[in-house]
């Protein structure tokens, strides 16, 4: 047995584990630097966030150890069951969740509160991997593709109902994993085109966008005129996409801003674009107010975060010397805006290194995925990489003003037990599966 354990540890991917430890320790340090006051006496004072984070880290490592000693086949066999459990948990949370800043995504068990939406990412990854590795599944068929999409979208929809839109967005990550497993290229192209269209419809006025879209459609039609006359699918594609684009930009976006999105969401989206919310999208009650009262500093968080990051310079201000970090100028700096504290204290060099570590980790996971014998492990690994990617991309983009403020954490760095624990579990399951990469897991 002892040889088995030794060989198990020998089979664990050291690079991934190293990167994981680097990230969690940097995170602990970052949380510490946000809270540190020169008047503090001693380390790890009770009640401080960094003390809690250290405890969370201990719990996470303990959980990781348990996972490493679990049989790798257990994950596959428990996949659907855990998914069901996660969905039930999410539904229960809608009704029993406590109200944290307007969302009902937190469930409290005595003194411990956690976000089922975070944990559910693990279950969804396992379930999707399990579904795609089933012998009966043929992912080239539309039916199975729809089922796969449903696996990802069901929790997302429930999370939207919990008013935690940002977290729901993470579930888009599973489409990246499914893309690897054969989802058509069109999906990716459609996705990016759609994002471009969405940004364009925010930036440009409706009339100008209408003219541009019409001109584009006319241009394509003229260029492909011969094929347009003879090819039915092409006709359908051009006319259909034109109709969708017009419908989206002229009807859906205004409707969404007026009736669906919350006021704060509208503000965040426009703040990201560096613009004021157009008067057309403001409720009538606010139009009556004076101009200055309306122009509140909506993007206060992002401004402060950009100041902190931008003032870091090349080498940064040095550890525990960040003036914005030490003095609490960036709201939520220990959770969503943790990147700003790193960038302020360690400058461009430090933040670039951090980004490199993240990219390296994602590439490494992708490499691990490709060397798996079983589909289950591969799909699961891609799920992990995609989740990391979405978190990483959106979180850092939002701290430097490239994306609207969406409340999702930076993996391994942000303060928070749910986040740290779920990402640790994701990584340790991956390490466990990778240790048994030669075994066929179904």
């Amino acid at each position, binding site marked *: 047995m002892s040889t088995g354990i030794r060989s198990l540890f020998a089979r664990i991917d050291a690079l991934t584990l190293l990167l994981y430890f680097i990230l969690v320790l940097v995170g602990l340090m970052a949380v510490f630097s946000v809270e540190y006051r020169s008047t503090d006496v001693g380390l790890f004072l009770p009640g401080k966030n960094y003390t809690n984070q250290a405890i969370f880290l201990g719990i996470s490592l303990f959980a990781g150890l348990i996972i490493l000693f679990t049989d790798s086949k257990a994950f596959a066999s428990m996949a659907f069951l855990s998914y069901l459990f996660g969905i039930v948990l999410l539904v229960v949370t809608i009704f029993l969740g406590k109200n944290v800043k307007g969302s009902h995504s937190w469930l409290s068990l005595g003194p411990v509160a956690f976000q089922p939406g975070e944990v559910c990412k693990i279950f969804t990854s396992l379930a999707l991997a399990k579904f795609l590795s089933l012998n009966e599944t043929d992912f080239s068929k539309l039916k199975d593709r729809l089922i796969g999409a449903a696996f990802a979208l069901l929790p997302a929809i429930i999370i939207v109902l919990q008013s935690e839109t940002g977290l729901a967005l993470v579930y888009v990550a599973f489409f*990246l994993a499914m893309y690897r497993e054969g989802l058509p290229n069109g999906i990716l192209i459609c996705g990016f085109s759609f994002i471009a269209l969405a940004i364009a419809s925010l930036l440009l006025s409706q009339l100008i966008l209408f003219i541009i879209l019409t001109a584009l459609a006319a241009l394509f039609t003229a260029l492909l005129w011969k094929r347009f006359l003879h090819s039915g699918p092409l006709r359908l594609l051009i006319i259909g996409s034109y109709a969708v684009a017009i419908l989206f930009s002229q009807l859906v976006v205004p409707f969404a801003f007026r009736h669906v999105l919350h006021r704060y969401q509208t503000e965040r989206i426009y703040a990201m674009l560096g613009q004021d919310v157009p008067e057309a999208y403001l409720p009538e009650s606010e139009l009556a107010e004076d101009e200055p009262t309306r122009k509140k500093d909506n993007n206060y968080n992002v401004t402060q975060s950009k100041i902190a990051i*931008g003032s870091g310079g090349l080498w940064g201000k040095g550890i525990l010397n960040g003036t914005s970090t*030490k003095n609490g100028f960036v709201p939520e700096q220990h959770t969503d805006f943790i990147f700003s504290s790193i960038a302020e204290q360690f400058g461009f060099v430090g933040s670039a290194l951090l980004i490199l570590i993240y990219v390296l980790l994602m*590439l490494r996971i992708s490499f691990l995925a490709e060397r798996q014998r079983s589909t289950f492990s591969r799909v699961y690994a891609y799920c992990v990489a995609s989740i990391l990617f979405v978190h990483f991309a959106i979180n850092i983009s939002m701290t*430097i003003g490239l994306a609207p403020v969406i409340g999702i954490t930076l993996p391994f760095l942000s303060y928070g037990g749910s986040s740290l624990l779920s990402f640790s579990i994701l990584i340790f399951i991956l390490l466990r599966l990778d240790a048994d990469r030669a075994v066929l897991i179904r």
Partner: protein
Amino acid sequence: MSFTPANSRRFVLRAIFIAMGLVLLIRLLFLQLFEPKYKVMAADIAIYRQVVYPPRGVIYDRKGRVVCYNEVVYDLQMTASNVPRDFDSSALCEILGIDGKTYHQNYEKAKWSNGPMRPGTFLPQLSPAQTARFGENRYSFPGFDMVERNIRSFPEPHGGAFLGYIGEISQRMLKQFRFLSYQPGDYVGLDGLELAYEEVLRGRRGVYYREKDKFNRPRDSYLKGALDTPAVAGRSLQLYVDMALQKYGEELMQNKLGSVVAIDPETGGILAMVSSPSYDPNLLRGADRSANFAALYKLHTKPLFNRAMKAFYNPGSTQKPMTALIALNDGVITPAYGYPCRGGYTLCGRFIACTHSNPGHAANLRLALANSCNSYFCHIYRLSVDAPKFGGVKKGLHKWYEQMYSFGFGHPTGVDLPYEIGGTLFDTLQYNEMYHGAWNSCTNVYIGMGQGELAVTPLQMANGMCIIANHGYYYTPHLVRAIANNPKDPVLAPYLVKHRVSNIPDTAFKIVGLGMMDVVNHGTATVARMKDIEVCAKTGTVENYAMLNGKRTKLQNHSVFVAFAPRVHPKIAIAVTVENAGYGATWAGPIASLMIEKYLKDSISAERKPLEQRMLNGKVINYHQVAIIDSTQRAKYELYRQRKDWLRQQRDSLRRAQDSASFFWYVNHYLMKKK
């Protein structure tokens, strides 16, 4: 495994990962390296410059007694956000002795002066009782704290005339070159030594860069204090003034209008500078300064007016030694020169009376000085200005003017106090203007005996005595002996220059001194005679006029007395004026002699005690008359101010009118051209 297209897709996914990383890197590159504004913004929000004011320098008198020091008082500060909701304000009110209404007023004021998160002043300058009571109970009042503050304090209530006071810098001062480095709200000396030695006393401000948090509360020092400059305390001043003498002088001068200036002739150091009525310098400090200042300013007796260097009078007979010095210097007389006075001077076609008529009372300079012969000094004045070697009275008077000027008359002496007045001394030019060129030595013969177009300050009189006492030189009168115990400080350099103003041999000076000693021994100033001190003195009785109810009225004479003592190796030169008090020997003489005795002997001898009592109790202010004169002056000044305002308005409107006119001309001119 079965999905063939999947193999290439891993590269697509990896490309997406890398591309996203690159996008973020590029954005960070621009944000962190090419947008310096964020550094400025970060410094703006998180770093603040804390200015620490050092304690002002202490002032000591010649014997090392403290004249002015910094007293620590406590302000009660309050941070509203730290005051609990259920705070028991009645206990605090009881301790501080204030009522509930005041508490709520002060609470709101302190809360909103700096915002609820930062401390604001709740009660300034706690009394010692309040300080003690609050200090015992401070633990029971969260949110309240005592903060140290320095205010200027004067252990003895004397010396207001030269010590001055400090206050917040005014807008007008801020525009001056001298105060360029000051900021609104800074404290600065506003008068007296506090203003004159502002740069010495203030020290150097300390600047500390500190971080503040999002509520503007100060936190750690920035960069561990690498950019900080510490405050340097102000340097101390050591004065020549003897505070015991100063106190004695102020007591002698109480209930009189006038001044005393005592100078050490060897150094030019001012031993006492009394301006009566005097005031307690402690009145002009701290929170009550402006109220007390207004009250003092309104008094008819003008206590804020330093008569020792701002009031000027005809010198009267006290000018006679100076006239003699100039005549001797010009070589027109020798000490043996005599004038046959028969009770008056007649050579100018009119009769100038002399108090003596016995023959031989002006047979030489010593006798003439002792008897204060008007004829003699009128005559030697004429001899000086009409001396043939100068070639005419107009050149001669200029020479006379030059010598008087070098003696320190007709211009501020340069004492180390601000706003000194120079007095009146006419040159040939002024006389030419006055008489349209048609005048001779008879026209202004009175200035030889100290009347006419000659006005001097008591400080200048005392300085004149120094010249005689020193046999021909003087040091510019000054109050400060040393700065931080260094008498050779560069700031004091102007006061270390010896001004030699006369080439008369010592023997002649000796004769002048003997003549002045005779004044005391058997002349007009016998009241100043002391058994063991040879006092040399000259009395003066100055006629003066004022407009009373629209009529030019002759008022009671000013009593003036100048002296130095002892005759050999003089230690003190003194000038005393008592306004509208009568003969020089009645009031000014005794006061001067008592001051001399006090300084040289440190106590008053028993047989002179009754004289001292008479001086201490004497009241010579005619309050009614002073009030009328003062009201007239203030009314005149008011009219003058209104007139000046009106002129300024006129000038301003004229300028505007000219501007409009030139504008219309410009428009019309070009319109015409265009047409």
